[in-house]
């Protein structure tokens, strides 16, 4: 059992507290919330791709499923926001479980294409089933999160809520990373036949990981929906799935902080170079290519290697 390293979560908490205390501009707080959501999604993908070896290029679909479940329940049926979260989680979990049953038997390129195809189908359904989703013009009138008399309609309040959740999840992820699950998943990633012959039910484990990450991603989708109050299919297209792959890869596959690092760097790009919006995808593609070609382990991997050299 490895020692817990509380620093990533503490550093994140410190930075978020500093941002919360100093930044008053709602726009920047909003950017921070969105980056946190990207970071969680990228971390979810990292657990699939970097730990378990499941190539999923359809994560945007689960993000969208969560957002639409919460959005529709809140906007159309007037549900309390909080009640929609478990529904979003379970909905995505079940869909992922059903889809994963056949899909996760595939490997490599086939798995990539199958998840990509799934993502595209969901995307097309979001566009075409306008009687539920509002179609390409989107879904409006999504309510606010409210519980125990606390109201999270304002961006400042939402930033606080999101930060608390974010740091909590980071801490949970650290517990996960330092438990035996880290080994179990990496054994499966490295060799399914070896894991099998050492008694690991790889099919079942992969299915559960895939479904759990889908549920987690859907919850992020719900958080997104209640933050922006308006969702349309564009946010859940293949482009977002690929952005997540880029974030996880650049940040560092197989390192628990990888998704967060990648999301912060790539999430800040469009903000820092707001004038260079045209070059956003160029930067994504370029960084992704460079990391895959020359920087195995991404940024987190490089940092960890440097630290080991010093020690």
């Amino acid at each position, binding site marked *: 059992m490895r020692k817990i390293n509380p620093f990533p979560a503490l550093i994140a908490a410190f930075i978020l507290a500093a941002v919360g205390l100093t930044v008053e501009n709602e726009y920047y707080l909003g950017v921070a919330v969105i980056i946190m959501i990207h970071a969680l999604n990228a971390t979810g993908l990292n657990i699939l791709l970097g730990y378990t070896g499941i190539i999923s290029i359809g994560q945007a679909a689960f993000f969208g499923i969560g957002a639409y479940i919460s959005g529709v329940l809140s906007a159309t049926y007037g549900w309390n926001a909080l009640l929609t979260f478990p529904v979003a989680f379970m909905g995505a979990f079940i869909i992922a479980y059903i889809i994963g049953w056949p899909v996760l038997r595939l490997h490599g390129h086939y798995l990539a*294409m199958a998840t*990509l195809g799934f993502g595209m189908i969901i995307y097309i359904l979001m566009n075409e089933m306008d009687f539920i989703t509002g179609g390409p013009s989107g879904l409006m009138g999504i309510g606010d999160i409210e519980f125990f008399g606390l109201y999270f309609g304002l961006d400042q309040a939402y930033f606080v809520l999101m930060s608390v959740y974010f740091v909590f999840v980071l801490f949970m992820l650290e517990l996960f990373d330092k438990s035996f699950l880290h080994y179990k998943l990496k054994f499966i990633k490295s060799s399914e036949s070896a894991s099998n012959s050492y008694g690991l039910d790889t099919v079942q484990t992969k299915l559960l990981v895939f479904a759990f990450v889908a549920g987690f991603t859907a919850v992020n989708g719900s958080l997104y929906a209640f933050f922006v109050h308006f969702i349309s299919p564009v946010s859940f297209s293949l482009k977002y799935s690929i952005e997540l*792959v880029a974030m996880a890869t650049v940040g560092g596959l197989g390192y628990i902080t990888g998704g967060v690092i990648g999301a912060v760097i790539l999430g800040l790009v469009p903000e820092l170079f707001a004038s260079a919006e045209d*070059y956003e995808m160029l930067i994504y593609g370029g960084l992704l290519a460079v990391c895959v070609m020359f920087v195995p382990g991404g940024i987190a991997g490089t940092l960890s290697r440097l630290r080991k050299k010093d020690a």
Partner: protein
Amino acid sequence: MQFLYSGLTGGSIYALVALGYNIIYNTTGLINFAQGEFVMLGGMLIYTLFAVFGMPFIIAFPLAVVTALIVGLLFERVFINLVRVKSDINLITVTIAASILLRDFAMHIWGRDTVTVGEFMPVKSIELPGGVISNQSIMVIAVGACIAFILHLFLKRSKYGRAMRACFDDMTAAGICGINAVMVRVMSFGVAAAVGAAAGVLISPITFVTYDDGLMIGLKGFAAAILGGLGSFWGAVAGGILLGLLESFAATIMPSGYKDAIAFVVILLILFVKPAGLFGKRMAKRV
């Protein structure tokens, strides 16, 4: 009957794109996620040469294809060759990254708007039993068939073609027999890009060209390849035509928005039910 004619036209294009996947898959075991970008590139190149520079089609077409071939060679040298750890995940990711870059370069060169290529010849409609077909469509089908046939000869008869097939059977053995495996890999990317670009040229007057067309057409080409059985030459042709027909048939019975979903349903169904495709050989799994 009308759906048959339009299905054949679309199907020929899918077949060509599928052949591009197969050429690369057969020599490297890799699925090139940027294959669709070559199709877009073909469209953009013919737009530049034919519509902007006003070259005669008969010169512009080969020139576009050769340019794409060179891009394909460079693509392999830059992206595939430089990946240090050639794991599945890395190779998939690098072709995705490359497709983002190609698309973005195209956007900066040719802009965000759809470009119109114009007709290669005066358009005429031809009455056929149960529907009409334009001479444009006939050209797509005929030239597509020619390209497939030339490619078939190339792979069966030429030195490079045979070397490509040897590499797929056994990379090491092929190397020992004096085949330059790296050369073959580079070539296969070149030829795949050329075939994809040819498809892009052919379809451009009918669908016009936008910088982000590559994604969809690439995925549909993949669906065709997998439908026919990845790696199988005639499987790709049959898969392409079958997908074209399925799509245009589906358009007659459901809202057109769902048409694009057909390809993905096909991908998923085939992968679930018969990953080897309709005409592919089953490969033994090694433990």
